[in-house]
């Protein structure tokens, strides 16, 4: 049974259609990540689910019940805000127990459940402190503590890690994954960071301009993106895109690159206007096997691998290639590059994918 189901949900602010007919269902215990560029409507979608924002159309079901138009507190959801939204005048203990105190539960039970949540999040020592006396990571834990204590049907996270520094972000990411495993609860997690999405998600929902572009597992999205937007958004460094020449030779894809062109023999998809290829599917080759010559512009040595930024000769087409660090390359050098032809994605004029590499 689905814990969360959205049916044709939409929302507009004034003249701007921010959410556009979203259909989606999350299974029980699933970790779903909504990812998309800033301003695409992720937060709005989350706020529609919580009920903080009234839906403009469509229905929302949580735990099988239609909650459209219901008060936020009746929906059985908990939300962790990007800003943590901790009450500055309350101790950590009171912050975590806030919802239970509102519900007028007995003091002992509140104390017991707060202690339990604090133990899970390893903040037992901080219970007497005020939020101002906590570090960013600790505040984040308190905010999560406040959400888990109510045993909600669905957890909602709105970019919870974006206020943390890089190292802490990686650590908290792991902890959230651990927490999910431990609680086994349905979690909806919003981020603009595709790395976060890839590492955390059971399923990713890619959103662009208020619409769902694609839903799938991280690997699925990476290997089989449905369109050019998803291809470009998922994966770092991003996929390389090259336009296809309209009047290329038969049975061959001719790629336009300024004055010169690249001919890919024996590989053609009707109607393709552009191709995409991931950096790891470009490889160095000898002058004979190579599909095209290119100049090495910059090499980023990351240790385990190197990222090579190439300039196809006679054009300003930038390409990124992922290589093993053993290759002795230096900037300015001319190399020959080969396409892994099985892994080329073909896109039509509208950006829809045409093949399944």
């Amino acid at each position, binding site marked *: 049974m689905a814990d969360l189901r959205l049916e044709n949900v*939409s929302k507009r602010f004034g003249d701007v259609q921010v959410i556009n007919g979203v259909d989606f269902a999350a299974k029980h215990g699933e970790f779903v990540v909504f990812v998309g560029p800033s301003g695409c409507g992720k937060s709005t979608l989350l706020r529609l689910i919580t009920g903080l924002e009234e839906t*403009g*159309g469509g229905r929302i079901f949580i735990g099988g019940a*239609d909650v*459209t138009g219901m008060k936020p507190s009746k929906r059985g959801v908990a939300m962790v805000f990007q800003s943590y939204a901790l009450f500055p005048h309350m101790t950590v203990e009171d912050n975590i127990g806030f919802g239970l105190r509102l519900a007028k539960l007995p003091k002992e039970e509140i104390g017991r459940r707060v202690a339990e949540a604090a133990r899970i999040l390893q903040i037992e020592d901080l219970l007497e402190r005020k939020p101002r006396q906590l570090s960013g990571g600790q505040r984040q834990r308190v905010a999560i503590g406040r959400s888990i204590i109510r045993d909600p049907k669905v957890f909602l996270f709105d970019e919870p890690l974006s206020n943390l520094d890089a190292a802490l972000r990686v650590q908290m990411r792991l902890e959230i994954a651990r927490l999910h495993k431990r609680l086994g609860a349905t979690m909806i997690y919003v981020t603009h960071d595709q790395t976060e999405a890839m590492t955390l998600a059971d399923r990713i929902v890619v959103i662009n301009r208020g619409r769902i572009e694609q839903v799938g597992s991280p690997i699925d999205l990476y290997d089989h993106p449905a369109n050019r937007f998803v291809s470009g958004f998922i994966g770092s460094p991003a996929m390389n895109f090259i336009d296809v020449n309209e009047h290329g030779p038969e049975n061959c894809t001719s790629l336009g690159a300024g004055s010169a062109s690249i001919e890919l023999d024996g590989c053609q998809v009707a109607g393709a206007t552009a191709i995409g290829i991931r950096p790891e599917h470009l490889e160095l080759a000898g002058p004979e096997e190579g599909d095209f010559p290119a100049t090495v512009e910059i090499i980023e040595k990351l240790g385990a691998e190197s990222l090579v930024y190439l300039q196809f000769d006679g054009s300003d087409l930038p390409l990124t290639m992922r290589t093993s660090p053993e290759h002795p390359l230096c900037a300015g050098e001319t190399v020959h590059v080969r396409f892994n032809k099985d892994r080329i994605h073909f896109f039509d004029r509208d950006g829809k994918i045409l093949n399944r590499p």
Partner: protein
Amino acid sequence: MVDAAAIDRPLRDFNPWPAVIVVCLVCLAVLFLAPTLGVLLSSVKTTRDIAFGELWTIPDTLFLGNFGEVIANPAVHRYILNTILVTVPATAASIALGVFAGYVFSKLPFRGSDVLFLILVSGMFFPPQVILIPLFRLFNTMGLIDTLWPIIIVHTALGIPICTLLMRNFFATVPNALREAAILEGANEWQVLMRVALPLSLPAIAVLATLQFTWIWNDFLWPLIFTNSDEKRTIMIGIVNLKGQYSVAWGVQGALSLIASIPTLIVFLFFQRYFIKGMTMGAVKG
């Protein structure tokens, strides 16, 4: 399509609160407006009507005789002129001094400037009665009692705390880099203040001008202490004085009160935003 979905959306629980709140607010607003309305009504009614208990009803005809009487009274002209002669220079002077001091405290701080600043600003908190007697003696010795000078001077001096506070806080938001750039261009400090900092701080000056103007125009205590002849009275004292003269001429008093409030009402109507800002920026004058 979206609209169709919107129609079959289940209705939200009916929320009666906004209606209740509006009703509460309207009742309170009527309560709050009633006194002001009373003055308005009295000014367009004859004293006879008022005496017969007709003050609080909406009149059928507007009686403008009260205004005529007030406007024709040369004493009123003098009161208003005196008030302007006090308010305008004192407002300008206190703001100018506040600008100077505020600039130094924010852009040219020195050792001990914090303490000096605190001393200046704390002047805001003390009841004016504390300095009443020595000032009276001082101006008496200088032979300035029953002139407008002591009023102007005291309002200037008592305006320094608030003006310094607001200007310092405002200048603090003007980037230091602007001052440094101007100085590298060859400007001296005076030019930086007049050509760079001041044009940027017009909003703060508007706040202070509205605040000081209202406060000085409405003041009652200082003219009461420092003037005693009718020639030198300001309008607020004039209202009280004329009360004796007209004894039970309530309609005339109403018209006079209204006329005396017009300048501050205009300031309130057009500069309300600045006014509120000044009041909430830690101002204590009320």
